[in-house]
Structures are given as C-alpha cells and as structure tokens.
C-alpha cells in the first residue's frame, strides 16, 4: 500500500512535470513548423515590402528590438542593480522596507499599465510616439525584477567575507563593490540576462510607446518597429503573407530569448562551478 501510494504520487508529479515541458516543446514545434520555411537570408536583411507584394523581411524589427531593448537595459540595469545593492546592504530600515514593497508591487503590475504610464509621461507631452518611450516602459518593467534578483544574490554572499574585508580596512562602499558585489557577480549577470529576456518579448507596453514602424528606422525619437509589435500587427492582419512572416518573426524572437536564457545558464555555471 505504501509502495503503491509512493508510485502513484511519483507518477502524478512526473506527469505534471511532463506537461510543463510539453508546453515549451509544443510551442517550439509549432513555431518551427509554421515559421522556419519563411526564414531565409532576406528575412534578416530586408525591410517589409508593401502589403500584397511577395518577399521582404523583418530587418527593421530585429534592429528595432535590439535598440529598444538595449536602451531599456542601459536605463534599467544600472538603476536595478544599484537598487538591489542598496536593498541588500542598507535595506534593513524603513526605507528598505518601502523600496522592497514598491518593487514587489511594480513586479506584479500588468505591463500594459506601465505602457499607459509611459504614454502619459513620454508620448502625450511630446505629441509623438517614440522608441525612447518604449525603452523607458521596458526599463520600468525591468528595474524591480533586477533589483530583487540582485538583492537575493548579494544576500547569498556570506557575512564572514564582508567582515574579512572590513577588518582589512576596506571602506564600506569598497567592501560592497569589490568583495560582495564581485562575489555575487555571476548571479547578478544571470538576473540581468533573464530580465532582458523577459522584456524583449513584451508587446503591450510598446503599443502605446514605440508604436511600430513599417520602415527601417534607427531614430529613437520616432516610432520604431520591434519583433513583438511586428508579430502583433502581422498576426492580426488580413494577409496570408503577413501571417507567414509573423510566424517566422515569432520563431526568431523565441530563439533570441532562448539564447539569452542559455547564456544566463552558462554564466551561472562559469561563476559557481569553479573550485567547488
């Protein structure tokens, strides 16, 4: 009876684990089946052509994703990491509690709400959609995630290391940066990569900000295309050709996120695999 119950429970959790993995596998299989055939060299190098014409690619969306997400990282990573360091090192008081609470709330805020917020502050006053506003929205999404991961990673550093540095006559800021943050670096980098991967696929906050652009553009003060926006527009559009491109763009986006996730794993291994 005991053995039977054990076997049953094992089977149940195994089935659940299988279902979780199955979702990813199905998504990947579907994307490859419907999107892979549309991917060729032109897909990466050409901008879209007018509706109805054959050919064209998503070069503008790929470059746009890079710019929008890259700028979001430039804004979000320093602030997120800095906030995380603050929380871990000085976050025991009231202010720390407040920052942590706000970060948790912000973490749970629907991304579309953040999109509206960015629109109110960065699009409406200027009267123009812009990639910059999109980056700001993504940065706001990224900051609480990265702050909390950084805090967790820094807290994992043994207290004894901090004391050793202080006893050597390290000032506190230098202890935090040279010893504590450096020891936690692998974890922090992983957190950042995961954060970037998370926002790279965001669509909702970009709808009101970066808007999308059918032409190739690198001007951050104007609307810009991203892969996620392209998938949204093309996927809901009326043309068969557009659907085809949307699938392929989805596959590219998924591949980007997967690569980021794999790099994150690799970095983690590099830092923690050594010496132990």
């Amino acid at each position, binding site marked *: 009876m005991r053995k039977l119950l054990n076997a049953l429970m094992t089977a149940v959790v195994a089935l659940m684990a299988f279902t979780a993995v199955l979702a990813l596998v199905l998504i990947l299989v579907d994307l490859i089946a419907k999107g892979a055939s549309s991917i060729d060299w032109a897909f990466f190098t050409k901008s879209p052509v007018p509706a109805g014409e054959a050919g064209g690619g998503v070069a503008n969306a790929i470059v746009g994703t890079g710019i929008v997400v890259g700028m979001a990282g430039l804004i979000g990573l320093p602030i997120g990491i800095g906030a995380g360091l603050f929380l871990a090192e000085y976050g025991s008081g009231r202010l720390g509690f407040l920052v942590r609470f706000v970060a948790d709330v912000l973490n749970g805020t629907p991304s579309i709400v953040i999109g509206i917020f960015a629109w109110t502050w960065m699009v409406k006053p200027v009267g123009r959609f812009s990639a910059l506003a999109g980056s700001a929205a993504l940065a706001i999404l990224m900051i609480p995630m990265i702050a909390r991961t950084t805090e967790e990673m820094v807290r994992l550093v043994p207290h004894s290391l901090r004391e050793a540095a202080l006893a050597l006559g390290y000032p506190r800021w*230098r202890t935090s940066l040279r010893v504590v943050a450096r*020891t936690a670096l692998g974890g922090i980098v992983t957190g950042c990569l995961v954060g970037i991967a998370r926002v790279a696929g965001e669509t909702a906050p970009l709808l009101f900000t970066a808007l999308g652009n059918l032409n190739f553009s690198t001007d951050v003060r104007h609307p810009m295309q991203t892969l996620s926006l392209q998938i949204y527009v093309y996927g809901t559009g009326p043309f068969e050709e557009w659907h085809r491109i949307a699938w392929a763009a989805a596959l590219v986006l998924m591949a980007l996120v997967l690569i980021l996730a794999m790099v994150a794993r690799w970095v983690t291994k590099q830092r923690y695999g050594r010496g132990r």
Partner: protein
Amino acid sequence: MAAGANVRLRLETVRLTALFDRTAAVREVSILFPAHTVTAIIGPSGCGKSTFLRCLNRMHELSEGGWVTGKVLLDEVDIYASDVNPIQLRRRIGMVFQRPTPFPTMSIYDNVAAGLRVNGRRPRGEMDESVERALRQAALWDEVKDRIQASALELSGGQQQRLCIARAIAPQPEILLLDEPTASLDPAGTQRIEELCHELKRLYTIVIVTHNLQQAARVSDYTAFFYMGRLIEVGRTSALFTKPQVEQTEQYITGRFG
C-alpha cells in the same frame, strides 16, 4: 621574550565595556598586551571573548547594536577617540577569523594584495615583494609559489587559513588578532598555525581567542580568562595554568565547568 621594564607597551584596554544595545557582553575589562607577545583569551562559550577581540579593531561597532564604553589604547592613543578613523585603524590591526575567508573571486596573489591595495597604488615590483614576504611569513609560499594566480578556493582549508593570515599581515600591521583561527582545521593545520604564532610574535603583537586550553598553553606568553563578560584573571601563561589565583579559573582549567 622576557617581560621586563623595557617592554614597550603596545595595546591596553581600560575598563572596556562592550554592549549590544543595552546588554553588556563584556564588562569593564582592563588588560595590557605587551609588544611582541602572544596573549591568549580563554573562557567558556558566550563569555564575551570574541566580542572583546572585536573591540580591539573597532569591528564590534559594526555589529547590529554594538557600541563600547571605556578605552582601548594603541601606543597610548585611544582608538575610540573621535579623531581616529576606524577604517585607517583597521589597516594597522590585522584580523583572522574562525573560518577561512579568502575572497572567492580573487587569485591567491590578489587575496594577499587586497589589504595592500586599499592603502593606495604601489609599483608592481614592490607589490610582488610584499606579497611574497607575507606568504613566506605565513609559511605558505613554498606551497603556492607555482600557482600564485590560481583561485584561492583551490587551497585546502588549512592553506586558506594561512592565506588569510598572509592577507592580514601583508600590510604589516602592528597587532594581529586571531579569533579561534584553528576552530575549523584538522590537527596538522592547527599545528602549523600554532607554529606560526611563535614565528610571528617577533614581528607583531598577537591576541588569540581560543577554545582550546592546550593551545593557549602552547602558544601564549600571557593568558586571560573571561567568564560571563568579565575578566576573571590574567597573568603569565605558565603561572595561570599552574597556580591560578582565582577559584573560577582553576575550575575552568581543570575542566570542571565550561
């Protein structure tokens, strides 16, 4: 080292009391640590010996709620005076902890150099010399000279602890504080550290906290017995272990409590 009138006084506490918020962990302790001697601090767990040690380089005040009253005189200057910078002070007093604490992201070389680098940049050659000297003094040089750039985590526990000693003495401090430095080491590692104490007292004044009475008897010139946050007795190690003046000391060293 003969204790005579000409022994230059290095470190002295005057009615030192260490508190956590309102609770005193160390009460009114006055001890002299003559230069170039090893003083062992013994006593049962929780008697305040580690807290006392941490007052000597102002580490105690970094603990949650930690503060002190009384004085700690280093060459007759109170280290708790308002014009003393605790960060500068800690560079003059090396400390080694119970468990080895090498910086995991740094090489062996960089670990030893860490304490030198906070004192400002210096030429490469001079740095190399200082690192080698510290590693030699810590009796680790021969074991690591061929892999000086390897990760500090590749060393064994005993080697890591000697690395921490090298790191502590590289900036040539005046005082060396050892907080149960052999607590996590095997007998061989313990013996190496004890031998080191004998070597290093020529250069530094050493205060060692230990749980191990035999260790105190082996390495120290003076021994101080702490109980319940108070200094019960202090004297030459040979005298304290053979003819303790206070009954509590005798009970402790004969193993009747603690």
